[in-house]
């Protein structure tokens, strides 16, 4: 078999920096092997050592500017868990509201601005008749049972003209040098025009979501209203005008999600039906969820949640296993660290062992794929590779029989004439993210009402007092919950009021990790393997599949100690298996 080794670096339209190398059979264009590598490292966990635990949230937030609120909240929850502090109801609701806004923002920007160009051919949109786009939008709105967003000829004509002028220029900017015309673009010209129109409209809608986070968070990215023990934006929460502003924006976002984003998903499900049925880009089909959005004022791990936790192996919906955090290990066989056996995150040693590229040939560097090739370790659950993320949340929730999740997933599947198994694919992963957004859009205003009612009823408590000197003498805690991209855990150990050790295991680590000690592939690698390229010189199918996970690579790189010293060992007793 004649093969070609292809290097794709930089992978664009992701957060962070990633390189993918694939081996392609030159006769069939099939990807026979795939390697995923992170090539940027910062060491934020090292930087967190010796600091005041109350500062961790603001620093950990800087892990990522895309899922900005997630690390902030998770870090603060880990410290609250260590201090045994239960936040007031207003704080729980406010955090859910801001986090919910983040999920929607993250998913919307991900699909339209980081992912849709893998499905949507910009140049094909130029051939469309705007009148056809109106018909197309109405057609999918009927399928979805929704009202199409701003569906008139003038809107599509404007976008078409804008694009036509844009292409007529010599400079295509961010659309320049794309893979336009590739055979795996399957949407019709009218559908492409509809999708590109939504691309531009989504820019405006994501600003609504940014403003929603700012109403109660001060700014976005990197809001600033969470503190250990609660939230600070009580003035804004008490202000009926701010509550109503948030509601107005949230309703507009909801209309767009239902009348544009979901329409595009039904359109994709139809255009890429064969691939969904064949499970193209499906990958591991084993899913892990920690659980997210607490709905009760009890410690998070024991609270009822919007997204229930659990583990499903090999797509077997009849067996949901309860998540047990003691079964998490990390393996560094193929990562740039010295550890030779899988280790529990708390007891892990992280001695760096950078081995560089294997060779440089004709100006192209190649990873040492037999050896170590990434800054990302490979997390294992019960010594198995799993996928995390919106698809995992929808699958596990479905398998748990969660009424709400089942309602939204079944609604889509019945209207698209699909079964749940068809979601185990690149397209399905993308659709699951949209279904989740739609669900959050519907519940977020209920949370807002609950908050408003509680405050108007006289409860204006926003912070739980604690005696810092006392609780921070010797403590350890963890925050395990869901981020937009999947299961996210922060672990902290505190002594004498300072951070002794800090660990974060993030969603993209689970998904983007390299091979493990048994040579098993990570979720990205497994999903890419077996893809067939339409054009061996254009990695479009690979990008489509990798983007379907919404990579967030700055988050994923593990802590190392550059002096080659072992970090102090770190144990947290896990008594809870939420």
């Amino acid at each position, binding site marked *: 078999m004649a093969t070609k080794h292809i*290097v*794709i*670096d*930089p*992978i*664009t*339209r*992701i*957060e962070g*920096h990633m*390189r993918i190398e694939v081996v392609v059979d030159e006769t069939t264009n099939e990807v026979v092997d795939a390697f995923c590598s992170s*090539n*940027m490292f*910062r*060491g*934020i966990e090292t*930087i967190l050592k010796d*600091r*005041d635990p*109350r500062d961790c949230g603001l*620093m950990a937030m*800087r892990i*990522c*500017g*895309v899922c*900005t609120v997630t690390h902030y909240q998770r870090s603060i929850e880990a410290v609250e868990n260590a201090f045994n502090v239960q936040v007031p109801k207003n704080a729980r609701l406010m955090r859910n509201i801001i986090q919910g806004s983040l999920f929607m923002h993250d998913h919307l*920007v991900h699909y339209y601005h*980081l992912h849709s160009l893998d499905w949507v051919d910009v140049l094909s949109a130029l051939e469309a008749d705007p009148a056809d786009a109106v018909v197309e939008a109405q057609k999918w709105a009927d399928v979805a049972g929704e009202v199409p967003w701003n569906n008139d000829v003038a809107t599509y004509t404007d976008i078409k*003209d804008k694009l036509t*002028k844009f292409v007529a*220029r010599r*400079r295509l*900017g*961010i659309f*320049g*040098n794309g*893979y336009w015309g590739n055979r795996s673009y399957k949407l019709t010209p009218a559908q492409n025009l509809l999708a590109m129109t939504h691309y531009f409209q989504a*820019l405006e809608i*994501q*600003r609504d979501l*940014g*403003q929603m986070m*700012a109403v109660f968070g*001060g*700014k*976005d*990215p990197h809001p*600033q209203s969470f503190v250990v*023990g609660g939230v600070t*934006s*009580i*003035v*804004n929460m008490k202000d009926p005008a701010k509550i109503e502003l948030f509601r107005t924006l949230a309703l507009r976002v909801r209309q767009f999600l239902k009348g544009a984003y979901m329409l595009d998903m039904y359109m994709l499900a139809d255009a890429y039906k064969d691939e969904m049925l064949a499970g193209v880009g499906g990958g591991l089909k084993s899913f892990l969820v920690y659980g997210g959005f607490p709905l009760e004022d009890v410690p998070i791990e024991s609270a009822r949640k919007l997204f229930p936790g659990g583990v499903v192996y090999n797509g077997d919906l009849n067996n949901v296993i309860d998540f047990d955090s003691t079964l998490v290990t990390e393996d560094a066989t193929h990562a740039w660290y010295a550890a030779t056996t899988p280790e529990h995150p708390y007891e892990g040693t992280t001695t760096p062992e950078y081995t560089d590229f294997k060779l440089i040939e004709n100006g*192209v560097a190649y990873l040492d794929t037999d050896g170590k090739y990434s800054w990302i370790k490979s997390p294992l659950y019960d010594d198995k590779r799993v996928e995390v993320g919106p698809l995992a949340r929808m699958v596990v929730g479905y398998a748990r029989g969660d009424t709400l999740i089942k309602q939204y997933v079944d609604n889509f599947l019945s209207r698209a004439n699909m079964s749940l198994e068809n979601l185990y694919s690149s397209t399905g992963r993308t659709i699951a993210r949209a279904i989740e957004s739609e669900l959050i859009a519907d519940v977020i205003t209920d949370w807002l009402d609950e908050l408003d009612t509680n405050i108007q009823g006289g409860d204006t408590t926003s*912070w739980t007092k604690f005696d*810092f*000197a006392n609780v921070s003498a010797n403590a350890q805690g963890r925050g395990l919950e869901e981020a937009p991209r999947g299961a996210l855990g922060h672990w902290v150990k505190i002594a004498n009021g300072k951070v002794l050790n800090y660990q974060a295991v993030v969603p993209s680590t689970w998904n983007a990790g390299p091979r493990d000690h048994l040579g098993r592939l990570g979720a990205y690698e497994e999903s890419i393997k077996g893809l067939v390229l339409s054009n061996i010189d254009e990695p479009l199918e690979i*990008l489509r599949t990798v983007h379907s996970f919404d990579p967030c690579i*700055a988050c994923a790189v593990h802590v190392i*100690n550059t002096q080659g010293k072992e970090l102090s060992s770190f144990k947290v007793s896990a008594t809870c298996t939420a």
Partner: protein
Amino acid sequence: MKYETQKSLLFSKESQLNTNKGEVFYKNLYRHCEDRLIKLRKKVSFSDEDVTTVLAEEGYERRDFMKWVSATTAALMLPAFFEPLVAQTIEVLNRVPVIWVNLQDCAGNSEALLRADGPTVDELILDIISLEFHELLMAPSGEAAEIQLEDAMTTFKGEYLLFVEGSIPTADGGIYGTIGTSGEKYVDHIKRVAVDAAGIVAVGTCATYGGVSAAYPNPTGACGVMDIIKDKPIVNIPACPANPANMLGVILMYAMTGELPELDTLLRPKFAFGTRIHDTCERRVHFDAGEYVEEWGDAAAQAGHCLYKMGCKGPMTFNNCPTVKFNRGESWPVAAGHGCIGCSEPGFFDKFNHFEAPTPYDKTYNPAADLTTITEGVVVLTAFSQFLNKEEYNNGN
């Protein structure tokens, strides 16, 4: 300095910056800008869009546009008679090509750029400047993306503005960041892309001073652009993330004058970083009145009082957050009840830790930190903060 003197400084309403430079200065600047406009008009246009058409297409009227121009002119601290010039400049703004590179970053500044909406036409401006390369947003990956970069660097040699997001790792031979098929180290990459840039704009605290990556013990030897590139004009727009309104201000200034805006000693544009947060803060009146939040969620917090005792770094931070704000002018951290954390100041993660207590001058986190950049005002303030009885609001620090 006597206590009384410190006190008077601390409570002074005076801005740190004299914004009026006199008639002669403005007349000369105006002439200079006009010459520049004539030159720009002669240049080959990279786009045949004219802003008026675009505005009309987007449903904006000329009036909306002029309103925005007024606001921008004011934000740039220029007299009102510059407004027509600003308007004309925007009309040729598409002639400024921009290359944006991401290094040790979190994409927060790119995300901030997406949210840019101070004036609604920001998006428009994005549409019609020539954004040649932007990893987070561009369609192609790998080789096709690299070709795009090379092409832009060649076509716009000596003309493009280079925006840099993220710090540059220099430790251990620069292994902590590589990019591209050749596995180029960030430190080499930035040097290569900077060579033919007209100027560099470092956006966000990471690209300016190293930011979070450079916080103690700085495991990757992260530093800012100005530590690597020594032979190019550089503008620093710190903050975490940088305010998109300030990014746009710099682009405008460059388009108008062909030069970068007036900078302070840290290469920050004075129009944005000339005043302390403390001096324009909406809660300043409570500071003056001695009304402080003493604990999160207390009666003072519910009434929106001053956050100085909760560790607000507004008195030692130079930025325009209180006036420009974020997300369509919706809010900023102090308005959300949390003190400023000084995110646009050098070394803020070390210098200002812990964030919930006033920072005494002698308690910086890293003894080796370079403190020469701290202005006298900070010294005064932090000295003053030691006069306060810290025990009453400082939980065990």
